[in-house]
């Protein structure tokens, strides 16, 4: 099953797919790899996501697959180094009209769906998305029939091994409901580079909830693109936890394409040591009367860096838009750094848009107060940090995903 991380075996791919890979390659040549002159790559070097790495030991992969297949998931799709591992996955019988399968399978069984949607939501000039589009090897294909509700969350377990590109495609039919859990991980001490894209297409009234966690791997470099298009009345929520790994970058691009659509984006970054975590969001209100909410929080200790660039665009016709964005940060050491850049580009005049950004340190008064009531210094710090991070953790349903988040937060801080 060893796989270098290039494309799938090119010989068996349909022509339309090869053509798309060619198009992506041309885009990449045209854009080049972004550098520090690019606003979006000011605090992180894109080249660091484009290095090659050796595959992780198979025993580590199996161990992580067993440890991180979440009990609350209805199905678990395991990918290691960009390759679907049916042997490590936990699958359920297919539902009528819906599909939960690997992209490599879907290319045979659901070719028309894949062909008509693959890559359609990618931001045009993004080198990283183009690189993924050119070289992806596998991923999750999730198609949910109209009015269907998945019996439970579908988990993507993305185990870093070498250098990989995954592409997941979610087609949420009208009024369907689905939940996706993503866990990205790699064995400790081994460089692994993962670049994944999840594309979600939400038809009228569909609801997709996405929760993602980078769950370990101190040498894992993970770039994760998340693109979603929301038709009328659909709801998309994502919550991303970047609480481990060497480098983490998420780019979330959401288009509100119909009225009464609602996007709820949130994330918690907790970095220490020399780690770097970088969050970019681009929320485009193309339709009026849609809503977006963003809450991103970061904790940075050691010599780490946590950055947030949040762009909200409201197009000229998107009247009655409601957009809120909040970025709250906590610096836990003198040498850590936080960069927070909210950007609002509003072309409509009848809108409610707000953004707020705060960066501070742990409240010394609170810290002393707790100690003077008998808390150890570390206990007091941990309590205050938990209080800061609490809002995004407490909103999670009880379960092993939440426990994992809590454990990792404790370890990181």
């Amino acid at each position, binding site marked *: 099953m060893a796989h270098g991380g290039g494309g799938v075996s090119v010989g068996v791919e349909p022509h339309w797919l090869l053509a798309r890979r060619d198009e992506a390659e041309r885009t990449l040549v045209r854009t080049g790899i972004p550098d520090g002159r690019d606003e979006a790559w000011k605090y992180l070097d894109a080249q660091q996501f484009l290095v090659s790495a050796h595959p992780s030991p198979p025993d580590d992969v199996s161990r992580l697959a067993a440890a991180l297949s979440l009990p609350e998931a209805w199905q678990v799709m395991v990918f290691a180094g960009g390759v679907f591992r049916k042997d490590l996955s936990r699958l359920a019988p297919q539902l009528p009209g819906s599909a939960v399968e690997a992209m490599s399978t879907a290319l045979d069984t659901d070719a028309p769906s894949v062909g008509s949607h693959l890559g359609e939501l990618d931001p045009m000039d993004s080198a990283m998305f183009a690189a993924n589009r050119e070289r992806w090897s596998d991923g999750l294909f999730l198609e949910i029939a109209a009015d269907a509700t998945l019996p439970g969350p579908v988990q993507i377990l993305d185990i870093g091994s070498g250098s990989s590109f995954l592409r997941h495609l979610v087609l949420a039919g009208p009024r369907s409901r689905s939940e996706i859990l993503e866990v990205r991980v790699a064995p400790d001490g081994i460089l692994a580079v993962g670049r994944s894209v999840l594309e979600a297409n939400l038809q009228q009234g569909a609801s997709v909830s996405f929760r993602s966690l980078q769950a370990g791997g101190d040498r894992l470099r993970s770039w994760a693109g998340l693109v979603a298009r929301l038709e009328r009345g659909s709801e998309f929520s994502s919550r991303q936890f970047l609480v481990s790994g060497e480098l983490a970058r998420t780019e979330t691009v959401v288009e509100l394409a119909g009225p009464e659509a609602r996007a709820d984006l949130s994330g918690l970054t907790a970095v220490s040591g020399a780690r770097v975590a970088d969050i970019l969001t681009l929320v485009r209100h193309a339709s009026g009367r849609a809503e977006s909410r963003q809450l991103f929080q970061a904790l940075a200790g050691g010599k780490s860096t946590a950055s947030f660039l949040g762009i909200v665009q409201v197009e000229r016709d998107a009247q009655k838009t409601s957009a809120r964005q909040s970025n709250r940060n906590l610096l836990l050491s003198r040498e850590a750094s936080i960069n927070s850049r909210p950007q609002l580009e509003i072309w409509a005049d009848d809108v409610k848009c707000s953004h707020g950004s705060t960066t501070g340190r742990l409240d010394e008064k609170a810290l002393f107060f707790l100690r003077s009531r008998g*808390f150890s210094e570390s206990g007091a710090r941990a309590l205050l940090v938990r209080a800061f991070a609490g809002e995004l953790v407490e909103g999670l349903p009880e379960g092993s995903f939440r426990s994992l988040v809590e454990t990792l937060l404790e370890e990181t801080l």
Partner: protein
Amino acid sequence: MSGEILLELKGLRAKAGETEILKGLDLTVRRGEVHAIMGPNGSGKSTLSQVIAGHPGYEVTGGTAQYKGKDLFSLAPEIRSRDGIFIAYQYPVEIPGVANNYFLRTALNEHRKHKGLPELEGGPFLKLLRERMKAVHMDPALSGRSLNEGFSGGQKKRNEVLQMLLLEPELAFLDETDSGLDIDALRDCADGVNSLRSPERAFVVVTHYQRLLDHIIPDFVHVLHDGRIIRTGSKELALELEAKGYEWLTAGAA
């Protein structure tokens, strides 16, 4: 009174920033005693409480402090607390996101661990908490709220006294606990203190006004002025101060 000495301050000097505030303060507190420290604003009353608590914003520049025979200043704030020192603060801090009951239970269990007692969890803790809250007439709903967040002045002070009732300190400093309180809250706080009075414990009541001392009867009243205790008397001294003000004492002292 002839209880064992709990706290002995000799020639205590302390600075807040560049300003020297305590300038040679002497005070001996024995078990079983209640001391009142009165003084005008700026005399160093709050600084004294903060120095006893170990607040890092105050620097001790001279003198000694013995607590139960140990050098107080060698002890971290949490050790002072676990070893029986409690400060009821004038301005209790608000901590959003930390539930009051969680805070109270953790603090109590840190103290219990220190004393070699098993931790109190769940039911037994809640039972104790309910009893103590009742004793200070505190709304039970406040136990689940974030610590002091959105509490009224009276609720915050009741919460301080509640912490004292749970932690059962040996030496409690009440730093202007009466400030900003209506008469009901004042009485509840005083009742809380009185319920803890015992031959083992001592209290130092720091106040600007005499009225709290109608409810907590002190054995000694000290007048603090310009960082030193300039007069010590019985509870009648407090009444005299109330009637005459501080000036008759401080005019010649500075």
